[in-house]
């Protein structure tokens, strides 16, 4: 009897792990992806939608078209995981039995956690939000524009910085830059989570007149007064406010009592097993791992999980471990970008921003549908190389 593998979530990680397992195990496994919408969204594109550089319909495809023919797809919402019984209960009343379970349920936006956020702030972390922001930016003819983060952790850590650089350029081209004040409200004591990247981008922010307020963790928004307040007790006035909404793990993780208070799965940083569960794996945003919540993380984790499950199915000891590998781009405006390549032991040493990395990001966005979900990015591609930086342990 083939091994039954159920993958919850048809995002980048879930799709890739399902395709890799089908390819590796063939008839030895029956792989089923469970996804509530059956649509696969390329979320990194929302940034470009907000700035009028991409259309929403480019960024979504039917999940079925991205899966190998041998992988089953159930367009259903999983509502409860029963680890001891080895089943997943589905919303419409059915259930699926599994020998191995991959939880790739991602993260969700919970703007309601911050009073006034939905009414007073724009965002580009959903397609609707990005389209609304694009409209607002077309109307914006100058004023105080504040960009911030309303909850930690949030996915794609470079995105608020990228948006700030790109909107500065947008307003310049629109001819309203001199009537605008742009400020990044950072939750940390620097512009970006990773210190080396923060040091690299700070001079570019200074050069373009982008202000920085540090230690500003958004607590509340007062839309009628046009004021955003921080947990640290500071207030900032705005004319246009763009905030990354707070994130939370999936409801099925919370309801199954598998997650921490934020709904994130306690996951072993190397084996990617959900702690205490040898046959359950956590993938991508769904985990509590102290690394970026990003498609790139899921992209590099998926082959490790596929390899470990394949070994278990074949009766051998799993060997592959996840080393914390992540690679992402950081747009710095003016048609330039840098890259962040790092793992658990190697912090990134981002190169000076240039046109080549911007072009690489653009190409990657274009190539995504035909490459990443199918595992077609070769191991030696520049996107997948680990950093050649020196170890922090040295």
């Amino acid at each position, binding site marked *: 009897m083939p091994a039954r593998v159920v993958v919850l979530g048809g995002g980048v990680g879930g799709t890739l792990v399902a395709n890799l397992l089908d390819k590796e195990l063939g008839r030895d496994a029956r792989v089923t992806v469970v996804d509530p919408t059956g649509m696969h969204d390329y979320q990194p594109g929302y940034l470009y939608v907000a700035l009028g550089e991409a259309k929403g319909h480019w960024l979504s495809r039917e999940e079925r078209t991205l899966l190998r023919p041998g992988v089953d797809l159930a367009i259903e919402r999983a509502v409860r995981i029963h680890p001891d019984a080895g089943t997943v209960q589905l919303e419409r009343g059915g259930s699926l039995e599994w020998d191995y379970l991959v939880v790739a349920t991602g993260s969700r936006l919970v703007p309601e956690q911050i009073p006034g956020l939905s009414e007073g702030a724009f965002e580009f972390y959903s397609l609707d939000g990005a389209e609304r922001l694009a409209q607002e930016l077309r109307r914006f003819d100058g004023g105080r524009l504040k960009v911030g983060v309303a909850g930690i952790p949030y996915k794609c850590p470079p995105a608020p910085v990228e948006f700030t650089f790109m909107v500065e350029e947008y307003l310049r081209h629109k001819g309203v830059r001199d009537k605008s004040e742009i400020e990044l409200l950072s*939750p*940390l*004591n620097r512009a970006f989570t990773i210190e080396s990247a923060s040091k690299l981008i700070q001079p570019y922010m200074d050069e373009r007149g982008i202000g920085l307020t540090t230690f500003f963790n958004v607590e509340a928004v007062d839309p009628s007064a046009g004021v955003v307040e921080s*947990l*640290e*007790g500071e207030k900032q006035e705005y004319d246009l406010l763009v905030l990354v909404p707070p994130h939370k793990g999936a409801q099925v993780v919370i309801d199954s009592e598998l997650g921490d208070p*934020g709904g994130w799965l306690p996951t072993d940083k190397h084996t990617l097993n959900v702690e205490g569960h040898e046959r359950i794996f956590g993938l991508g945003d769904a985990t509590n791992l102290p690394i970026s919540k990003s498609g790139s993380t899921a992209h590099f984790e998926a082959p490790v999980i596929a390899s470990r499950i394949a070994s278990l199915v074949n009766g051998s000891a799993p060997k592959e471990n996840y080393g914390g590998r992540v690679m992402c781009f950081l747009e710095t405006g003016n048609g330039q970008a840098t890259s962040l390549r790092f793992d658990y032991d190697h912090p990134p040493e981002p190169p000076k921003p240039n046109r080549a990395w911007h072009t690489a990001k653009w190409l990657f966005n274009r190539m995504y549908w035909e490459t990443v979900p199918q595992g077609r990015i070769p191991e030696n591609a520049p996107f997948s190389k680990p950093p050649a930086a020196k170890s922090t342990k040295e």
Partner: protein
Amino acid sequence: MTTTEVTRSIDAKGMACPGPLMTLIGAIREGQVGDVIEVLSSDEGSKTDIPAWVAKAQHELIEVVPDDGFTRFIIRKVR
């Protein structure tokens, strides 16, 4: 060693910067005034980041104690 009763302890050893600080900020957000939060961090950056944030956010840094390969920070939520 402090005699203050700790309300919540966060073991952030092995977590890279800015993880320990972010975990503390989350705990302050969720906690009640008067709560005493203990953070154990092996990250060097925490030695400057955590006191700087506690000062800015106007909470009370009760104690910073070096331990075996990590530092213990005790913070009281005061507002």
